[in-house]
């Protein structure tokens, strides 16, 4: 995609000079980022580089020390349902007595009125479950699902809120590699309707599917393209050893450009 094309599209997320501290420690600094409608941005970076914190700040779960975040052109105070979130699934207790259907309905919490979910809420839950191909398993307790199935349920739960932007945090970390390709295909399909931001430490897996890549290690290295220069990676990782094993980094990434590009 070229620069002209991007300027015609709407900016859905605009981050300026973001500074985030956790317990007095600077986790994100001088982060500037513009995400456009229907972008598919992959953010890579070392563990502890602030990837999850960036997502949580966009979601309003973490308060920024300085800087601004605009969502859909409006300064963010509280998440109004435009942004949804797919966490690393290890984040919750698998022995919790709850089934697929109930988990997906939780995506409708924000619009629920009265004590139970409305007919519309249930209709939306049915629709998103079919979308991720989990409708048949809707009565299954969450503890009896495989990693890939749980991940699909969590995507459905996020979709149930009818978001315009979907944030995913290491979504394939606990999925069997056989199912990863299928999962990324689902994301590509969703990307036709919404903006996706995907965080991962696994550069080789995500670089095939995303449209643009950024590297985050406290500061964000980003040039609105799918190519990361060796300098960006060097700064981002400060330890390019892992990547050298794949060859020269920017060539590895550039090689995919024609395949997925625009």
């Amino acid at each position: 995609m070229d620069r002209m094309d991007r300027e015609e599209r709407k900016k859905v997320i605009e981050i300026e000079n973001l500074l985030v501290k956790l317990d007095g420690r600077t986790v994100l600094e001088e982060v500037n980022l513009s995400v456009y409608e229907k972008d598919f941005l992959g953010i890579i970076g070392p563990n502890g580089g602030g990837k999850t914190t960036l997502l949580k700040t966009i979601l309003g779960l973490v308060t920024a020390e300085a800087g601004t975040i605009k969502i859909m052109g409006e300064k963010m105070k509280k998440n109004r349902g435009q942004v949804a979130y797919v966490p690393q699934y290890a984040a919750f207790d698998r022995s919790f007595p709850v089934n697929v259907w109930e988990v997906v309905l939780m995506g409708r919490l924000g619009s629920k009125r009265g004590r139970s979910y409305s007919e519309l809420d249930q209709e939306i839950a049915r629709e998103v479950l079919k979308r991720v191909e989990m409708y048949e398993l809707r009565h299954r307790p969450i503890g009896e699902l495989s990693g890939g199935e749980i991940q699909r349920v969590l995507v459905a739960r996020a979709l149930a809120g009818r978001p315009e932007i979907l944030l995913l945090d290491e979504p394939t970390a606990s999925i069997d590699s056989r199912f990863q390709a299928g999962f990324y295909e689902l994301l590509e399909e969703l990307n036709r309707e919404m903006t996706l931001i995907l965080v991962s430490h696994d550069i080789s897996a995500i670089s095939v599917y995303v449209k643009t890549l950024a590297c985050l290690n406290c500061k964000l290295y980003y040039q609105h393209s799918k190519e990361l220069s060796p300098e960006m990676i060097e700064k981002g990782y400060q330890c390019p050893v892992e990547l050298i094993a794949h060859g020269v980094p920017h060539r590895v990434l550039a090689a995919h450009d024609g395949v997925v590009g625009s």
Partner: protein
Amino acid sequence: MELLQFDFLRHALAAGILASIACGVVGSYVVIKRIVFISGGISHTAYGGIGLGYFLGINPILGAVFFTVISALGMGVLAERTRQREDTLIGIIWAVGMALGVIFVKLSPGYTSDLMSYLFGNILAVPFQDLILISILDAIIVAVVWFYFEELKAVAFDEEFAQVAGISTRLFNLLLLLLIALTVVVMIRAVGIILVIALMSIPPAIAGQSSKSLKGMMVLAIILGIVFNSGGIFLSYFFDLPSGATIILLAAAGFIISTASRQRFG
């Protein structure tokens, strides 16, 4: 069933059923949310309220309501506002509540005869007046959970997501702490302050081993609670044993049997 002609036994069974309802409903949230020790802290502060009741010459149970509610709110707000570790706060609030109780009891005029029954429970001697009070508390607990069932479930399951989805997790966490405070008071007459923590966690823990839904877990926990309470009442009556301890040991036996059988067959 001639035994049921005795008022005290009928009161005891009623108190057992009321306690089981509160503990099945709220205890299920406590167990799945892993906040058993927060509940322990809140229940022990009730001793401060019991002491205050003696000191002021009012019903100690009313004092207990006051103290558990204050400590629940305090725990919720402190855990959020200060940077202290949560378990440290629980330990401090737990001990401060008991210490206040000890001082109040010492300062109270006259003879504090049934103090032990508040500590270890005496379900065979529940006054009718207290039965009315715990019925009201039970009704409040059930009504609140009936109305906010989905929100409380979502916050217990995945707090972060619930917040992203747009509900105030702070508010619902505080609401759950308040429900725990009321549940503690409902159970004091049956098993006493010190043993409350066991009755709040054992029936839901057993129920949770086989339940596939939170609603099912609550219903099963209530039934188990009624079985343990009623069984404990009759055992303690016939063998002249302390009722609170008998109920808890019966429940613990149930937990061991359930867990062991699941280990073997599950």
